């Protein structure tokens, strides 16, 4: 059963074609990632699915409803984390969650959400005293407090420190185990690699690759072996890493020599991404 279905989606801003003919499906219970550099059309696509923007062409169904014509009953079933946090500075964490809980027909208990997003220690702190990462976690809490079936996350961990990012990943995994459907956009390929069942890579408004992360990285065959020899870095690419590595180490052992800085890497989603998007990874934070 599909939670989201998108066919031939198009959207232009004046002369700029932000999204040009995008198709994809997201199944119920799936974690789906939209990847791509800035300006690739990720946010435009997600905001059309959330009901914020009107599309120029194509068919979109989210939870069986066209978001452009959806009302309160539909919004009751979705949760949203927008790209930038926006909240009342003068309310505390729990007050904020209680305010939003009141908008939904079957909210989760506020205390449970506070714990879920790891703000237990800050529950009575005013929003204006929270750090950027803590606000982002509250954002996630506000998206979850209505106990939605479907959750949209637009760059949910941008600006997190590595520890907070891992915590957020844990939260998202636990949501998935509850059977929630999650759509997230991200700059971080390790994030997509670890969280998403399937990803679609957007480039200039078109999907250039789609599938499970492991399947995408399998399209690049070579395993890379690196080590240093006499201060020089040696890089070998091979489809038979077991044999090559065995030969290398056997030789080194026989010569009583250490393979300095030995590293074996499988191609990652990052390599696929770089190849597909033709260049730089967005290092943008914020």
């Amino acid at each position, binding site marked *: 059963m599909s939670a989201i279905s998108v066919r031939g989606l198009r959207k232009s801003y004046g002369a700029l074609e932000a999204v040009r003919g995008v198709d994809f499906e997201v199944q119920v219970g799936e974690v789906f990632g939209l990847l791509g550099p800035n300006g690739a059309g990720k946010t435009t696509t997600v905001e059309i699915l*959330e009901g914020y923007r009107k599309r120029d062409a194509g068919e979109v169904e989210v939870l069986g409803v066209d978001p452009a014509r959806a009302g309160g*009953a539909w919004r009751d079933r979705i949760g949203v984390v*927008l790209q930038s946090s926006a909240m009342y500075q*003068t*309310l505390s964490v729990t007050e904020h969650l209680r305010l939003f809980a009141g908008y*939904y*027909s079957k909210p989760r208990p506020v205390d449970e959400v506070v714990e879920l997003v790891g703000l237990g220690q800050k529950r009575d702190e005013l929003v204006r005293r929270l750090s950027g990462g803590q606000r982002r976690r509250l954002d996630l809490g506000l998206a979850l407090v209505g106990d939605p079936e479907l959750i949209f996350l637009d760059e949910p961990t941008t600006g997190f420190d590595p520890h907070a990012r891992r915590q957020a990943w844990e939260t998202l995994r636990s949501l998935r185990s509850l059977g929630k459907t999650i759509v997230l956009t991200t700059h971080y390929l390790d994030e997509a690699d670890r969280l998403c069942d399937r990803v679609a890579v957007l480039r200039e408004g078109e999907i250039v690759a789609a599938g499970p992360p492991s399947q995408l990285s399998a399209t690049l065959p070579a395993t890379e072996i690196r080590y240093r020899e006499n201060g020089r870095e040696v890089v070998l690419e091979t489809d038979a890493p077991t044999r090559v590595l065995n030969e290398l180490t056997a030789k080194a052992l026989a010569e009583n020599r250490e393979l300095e800085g030995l590293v074996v890497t499988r191609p990652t989603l990052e390599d696929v991404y770089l190849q597909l998007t033709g260049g730089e990874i967005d290092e943008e934070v914020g």
Partner: protein
Amino acid sequence: MRLFRHELKSELLLYVRSRELAFFTFLFPIILFVLLGSSYGNDRIKSEGNVRGANFLEAGMIGYGAISIAFAGLAIVLVLRRESGVLKRLRATPLPAPAYIVALLSSFLAAFAVEVLAIVVLGRLLFSIGAPDRIGSLVLILLLGAVSFAGLGIGLTALIRSAVRWIAAALPLTYFLRIVRGVMLHGHEIWMYPGSLAMIAAWGVLGVVLAIRGFRWEPVEAG
């Protein structure tokens, strides 16, 4: 209806919490009423049928309160919420737009009602102004006026693209005006008002001291 009640409660909480709003739109008319009332309360205003200054001021400050709260306050809050993205976030929730607008409006009308009550009670206690006679008419015109200003305020937000700047308040207004009036209307010289001069100077010194002591380079409660 449930959502409306929930939003109204939330808006009242938000109103009470916002100190800037409370000072500039809610307290300021009351402060002016007390300050000006203390100076001119017992003067008679000929053009208004010899009514007492305090009574005249009371009506005027209630009018000022209506504009200050329903028009300026509401417009400022809506613009700030829109520009900071709060409205966009709210749109993703099941809260219907009419429930939101009516609840926001009602919270500001409630604030205005409290303001009117405070001015009437203070007028009675400080300046012995009697309770208004035509309560029905008064309530109706205040309600009509406040709703109309609020509508205008919401309309104005369509014109304002970015946040509104505050204009600083001048508390020693009474003394200042007294001297200005004396100099301009009665040919007095500035030194004929030693008491008022002292008050203005005292406010000035107080202000400068507070400014020096309280100056911060950074937002007060950030981080």
